[in-house]
């Protein structure tokens, strides 16, 4: 293996795969990046066995070959090298010498054969979507996925692909985010994708690129340009989220998002560290916030609001509300309620976008 590459190209390739390489692993080869010199350039690949990322960067290849090298060391070397062409020369299966100007390194890697093979995903029947659309879906929904291991299915984001629309749904069992975007063509599929894989997609592909999305039996693949992302799909039935979306909420409040978030943050200072409990009392033209935390203190605040319906007192985890508000794309948001122990919905008001977006949050049952 022998090739010459610019520092910028090498850094671009390493930056693309580095996020998929685990910092700590029991399998040493996973700490390495696979470098394959081919006639099309240099293919860099990294994986943590759940997610695999591969990208091709331009290089002047004199002799084809492959080797795996410690990713962190290679990133550090690439960062410290002067802005001059870098020459990689393989010496045997594991040793590589790196020369740049008068700097010389010899790195010991591991044979290519030890690197895990990537999943086989065929892109001949792939869905196609603008990367910007995928970014929008991921950016507004993935935050709601669970990070607890008790229900692995909730650790994934449900991606419904339909001929006329794409929908993403994520929930941790207490709050839920859902977004629909129009689509055209393609077949029907329901995929449960780890949020980490979707974040890789968001990070790797520019908004104006077109992304091909394909699936095999238990993997999903994304392809755009020379960059590929593969991920294991989460198996199992996703909870019937349609059933929990309230249709009969008869109380509605429209509030200024920034003012609401500011009031919630103020109240959170005194809220319980465990439950982040906050009480909201809607009536007339105001919403009153109150927090009472034993052994700490209490706080009250008030905001003007456009409210329709009977007066309502309801408890929430302030963190859930703040997080949802953060992802609402408009300055005003609309809350709807049915009762203190029923799900509340939150939607943007006046969003001029073909997408439709909503979030649900379950209240805290207040006992006093």
């Amino acid at each position: 293996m022998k090739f010459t590459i610019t520092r910028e190209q090498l850094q671009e390739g390493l930056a693309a795969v580095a996020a998929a390489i685990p910092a700590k692993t029991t399998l040493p080869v996973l700490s390495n990046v696979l470098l394959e010199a081919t006639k099309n350039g240099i293919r860099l690949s990294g994986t943590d066995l759940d997610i695999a990322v591969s990208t091709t960067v331009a290089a002047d290849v004199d002799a084809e070959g492959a080797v795996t090298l410690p990713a962190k060391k290679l990133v550090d070397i690439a960062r410290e090298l002067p802005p001059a062409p870098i020459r990689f020369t393989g010496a045997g299966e594991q040793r590589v010498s790196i020369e740049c100007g008068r700097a010389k390194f010899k790195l010991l890697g591991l044979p290519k054969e030890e690197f895990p093979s990537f999943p086989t995903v065929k892109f001949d029947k792939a869905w196609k979507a603008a990367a910007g659309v995928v970014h929008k879906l991921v950016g507004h929904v993935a935050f709601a996925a669970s990070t607890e291991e008790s229900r692995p299915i909730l650790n994934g984001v449900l991606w419904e692909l339909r001929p006329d629309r794409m929908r993403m749904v994520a929930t941790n069992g207490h709050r839920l985010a859902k977004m629909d975007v129009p689509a055209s063509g393609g077949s029907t599929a329901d995929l449960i994708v780890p949020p980490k894989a979707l974040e890789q997609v968001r990070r790797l592909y520019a908004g104006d690129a077109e992304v091909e999305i394909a699936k095999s039996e238990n993997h999903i693949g994304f392809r755009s340009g020379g960059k590929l992302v593969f991920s294991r799909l989460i198996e199992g039935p996703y909870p019937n989220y349609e059933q929990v979306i309230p249709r009969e909420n008869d109380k509605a409040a429209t509030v200024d998002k920034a003012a609401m978030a500011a009031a919630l943050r103020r109240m959170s200072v005194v809220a319980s560290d465990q439950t982040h409990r906050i009480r909201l009392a809607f009536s007339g033209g105001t919403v009153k916030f109150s927090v009472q935390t034993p052994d700490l203190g209490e706080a009250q605040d008030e905001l003007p609001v456009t409210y329709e319906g009977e007066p309502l007192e309801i408890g929430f985890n302030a963190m859930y509300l703040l997080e949802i508000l953060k992802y609402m794309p408009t300055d005003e948001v609309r809350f709807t309620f049915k009762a203190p122990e029923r799900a509340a919905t939150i939607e943007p008001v006046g969003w001029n976008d073909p997408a439709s977006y909503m979030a649900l949050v379950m209240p805290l049952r207040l006992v006093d």
Partner: protein
Amino acid sequence: MDRAILYVNPLSFPIAVECRVSTRLTGRPVALAPGGTDRAIIWSASPEAVCAGVEVGMPIYQALRRCPDLVIQPPRYALYARAAVALEGILQPFVPVIEPHTLGHAYGDLTGTRKLFGPATDVAAKIRREIWGRLGLPVTVGLAANKVVSEVAAHVLKPEPVVDVRPGDEPAFLAPHPLAALPGAEPNVRERLARYNVVRIGALAALTRVQVEGVLGRRGAVLHSRACGIDPRPVTPPARRETLRVHASLTVETNDREALVVLLRGLAEEIGRALRRRRATAERLHVRVRYADHRDAAGDEPLEPATDLDGELAAAARRLADRVATRRIALTAVGLTATIGAGSDVQLSLFDPPPPALRRRSLNDAIDRVRRRYGTKSIRYAH
């Protein structure tokens, strides 16, 4: 800076409190045991009763056989809890960090208070005088550089009101005492060590850590360190978690699983009622059973989500009892302890609890209303 840890050891605390309240008990053999059955177990005994052969953990009928003059009183836990709080109140002006241990006993950290209050030995003596003067309770105080040595000091040298073990003297101080004096050396541990002729703390300290681990497993390392007078545990004030306790002594010893389930159900309902009355939920349930041979078995589990529902409490109690009551020996008593959650609010779930849980909540509320009006026995679950 050398640590200065003290351990306050009130002598026969519940009995001393009873004697303080009722002077007629002073000097007489007294024992505390739940009433209602002569099979109830002696919970605490005065030194006079102990001299007469009465032992803690013994059934009442057996204690009376050994000491016919024995005065048996039902324990008044609330009274002892109040006395423990009063005792802690006396410590507070002198001791910056207090960690209550068992009832009335407490660790205190005096590190860094020398310029403020004088030598730690003087503070310990003053605390002892204050407790005796204001509460009339006799205490011994152990003073050392760590928790384990101060506790042993307070227990083993009872005629001495204050025992100060100087830093560096810990191994020599501990060595001659029997293993039973070492916190953590439970009977089963002592039994295993006795097979190797290790019956004193010094003998355990003389072994290597690896040798002790070979006999006792991983916990051996901790016990070996303690035997050497090493205990890095800090004195930590307790997290303020309230608990609710209920227990029942069986009038007839039994190992009938169905009878145990019925008893647990009743206790769980009692806890559930108390929780709902306080508008609180339990986040952990603890079950303790006592066998006819006076041995205890206990276990606990978290309740997720925290609950106040009779059905969920009873189910958890039954699971725990299945786990802990595994010996084929009749039971004499069962107790449930619920730890009240830090926040009694419950985060509702989109997918759980299913509708039956909400129905059970309404059912519990309805049962509570009936019982408030017509008495506890007016309505009960069909088992």
